[in-house]
């Protein structure tokens, strides 16, 4: 009997808290002008849209063109229209890697190969009749398991870029400020890591020196790290990270050697690569199993600040290339039409992605709130 009373009281307390929270939440929902979001893996978004589980979704390529080419969806907004040249995927280095044998030089050479691969892609994309364009499409088809028409459509809305610069920095500052507002990191955490402000953090977390040093790097006839390859991290089938596919491909250069080999590097996939998410890849950096990796800027920022993962951003991989997709003939013609409707965002964590942040920015510009679906 006694035990029952105690358990009953504890249960009652939990139920009261739950009901009170629910009531609070319902009262929040009553306000007009609210768009709801739901975390979902991008690979499931198209199916969720076609079965009316969600009214729209925002994701990166090729998940956008997947629906467009299949004629089940149309793009309501491209992220480039929300924030032109917005950052997306970046190249991240484990800082401890620099203290290994030839660490600094290996990282500089890697950045050089990344730059050359990016330039090669941009040249290929500039001339759709060229042989290299066909090669690039073929590589992307192999990497993403999508058909060529989806890849070609996706290429139209994303740009590969390795330079960073001031607009990159200010976008990262804006994102970090939003994370603090969203309670996903704190000013105290910035302090814990030795940063005095968000601007100071971005200034020091983004390291331009590798891009600067790359200018002085020449092809090398010998491999600098035989037997101890650089462990490379990247995400599963992420079209934004094509630079690493091209850099590893022996067909791009025309010399029979890949860009990485040309600059004297031996590289292998890190344990766990391709990773399912940037967060998982950052855990690999923490464990020391990833040396250099491609991933979205947000997890690299958040896991560095919150989890103390010793990383630094050394180059950009791409800009733009994400879109908000609604079902074809859905009658949704503007963001206002999304009021009280549900948008799938990549996650969980739902609020981490650049896609989420950009959509939130745009909705707020239009006076709309973006809250989690309950």
């Amino acid at each position: 009997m006694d035990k029952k009373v105690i358990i009953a009281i504890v249960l009652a307390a939990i139920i009261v808290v739950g009901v009170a929270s629910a009531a609070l939440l319902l009262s929040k929902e009553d306000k007009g002008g609210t768009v709801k979001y739901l975390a979902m893996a991008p690979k499931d978004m198209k199916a969720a849209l076609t079965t009316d589980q969600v009214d729209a979704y925002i994701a990166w390529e090729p998940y956008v063109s997947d629906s467009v080419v299949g004629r089940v969806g149309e793009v309501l907004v491209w992220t480039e229209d929300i924030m032109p040249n917005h950052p997306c995927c970046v190249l991240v280095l484990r800082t401890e890697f620099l203290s290994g044998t030839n660490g600094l030089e290996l990282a500089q050479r890697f950045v050089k190969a990344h730059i050359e691969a990016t330039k090669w892609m941009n040249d290929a994309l500039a001339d759709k009749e060229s042989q290299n364009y066909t090669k690039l499409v073929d590589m992307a088809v192999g990497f993403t398991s999508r058909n060529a028409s989806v890849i070609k459509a996706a290429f139209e809305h994303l740009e590969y870029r390795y330079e960073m610069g001031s607009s990159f920095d200010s976008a990262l500052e804006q994102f970090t400020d939003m994370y603090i507002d969203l309670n996903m990191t704190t000013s105290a955490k910035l302090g814990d890591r030795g940063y005095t402000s968000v601007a100071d953090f971005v200034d020091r977390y983004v390291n331009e020196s590798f891009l600067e040093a790359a200018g002085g790097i020449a092809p090398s006839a010998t491999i600098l790290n035989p037997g101890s390859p650089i462990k490379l991290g990247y995400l599963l089938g992420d079209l934004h990270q094509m630079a690493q596919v091209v850099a590893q491909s022996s067909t791009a250069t025309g010399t029979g050697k890949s860009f990485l080999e040309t600059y004297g590097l031996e590289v292998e996939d890190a344990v766990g690569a391709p990773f399912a998410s940037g967060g998982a890849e950052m855990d690999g950096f923490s464990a020391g199993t990833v040396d250099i990796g491609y991933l979205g800027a947000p997890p690299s920022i958040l896991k560095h600040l919150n989890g103390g993962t010793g990383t630094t951003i050394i180059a950009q991989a791409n800009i733009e290339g994400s879109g908000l997709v609604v079902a074809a003939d859905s009658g949704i013609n503007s963001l206002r039409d999304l009021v009280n409707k549900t948008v799938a965002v990549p996650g969980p964590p739902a609020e981490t992605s650049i896609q989420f942040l950009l959509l939130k920015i745009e909705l707020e510009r239009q006076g709309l709130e973006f809250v989690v679906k309950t």
Partner: protein
Amino acid sequence: MAGIVRSAYQLVSSNWRKVALGLASTAVFLLIWWLYAAWLRADWPFHGTPSGAWEYVPYPLEVLDAFYLSFWSHPVSGLYMGEHIYASLKRFFMGFILAFALAVPVGLLMGRFWTADAAGKPIVELIRPIPPIAWIPIFLVLLGVIRGPIAIVFLGIFFPILLNVQFGARSVDPTLIDAARTLGARRLDIFLKVVLPFTVPYLMTGVTVGLGIGWMCIVAAEMLGAAGGGVGYFIFVTAGNSQFPYTYAGMLMIGILSILTTGVAGLVERRVSKWVGMR
């Protein structure tokens, strides 16, 4: 209030050996945890260089702090822990009720009738070992964002109950049935008054195991577009952002919820056992 204190006191004083052992083992567990966290950080009593991944294991007190804050001042996805608990409990109980309602009759049938067993076994054995996580995209599309996560929890709870009920129904002592028959019981009587009561302890074992597995499935279930969050979602989000004290706080909450639900199941078992005359 005084009554509760008195009854808690009685509970402790009558079981003091058990309580002392439980407290001692918990203390040892916390000490090992604390030492491990200190070792990763190279804090006192250790020294040297901290591990690169020390923040993955917070101190017990940091977790307790995060646990407290998650209720009042640290929302995840804009939702406080109370709201996450509410979302998870709702999902969990729907899954449990469905699993119970389906597993008990099917288990009884499969336990008592070889035809039902022969027909059901291949399907059960085929589906049982599939990890709930594998169903996520399928359930999302077929069942949607509300019913999909419930279905994942359902799968976790369904099979332990089914198998235990089946085993219970099969192991009814034939002499009991013969005795009942000799006393003039009809088939329905035998079923209701012999087989069913005999199965109750097995059923409750299934429920206890199923509840545990159900909570294990909640993280997987809440990866699937979990509307309104949930404790599993809370764990997933905070781990994804390396807010590790909160991740552990979420794990602690799952543990507490599991203990509470198992406790309630124990109470129900005693009631039901008494009611059907097994105790």
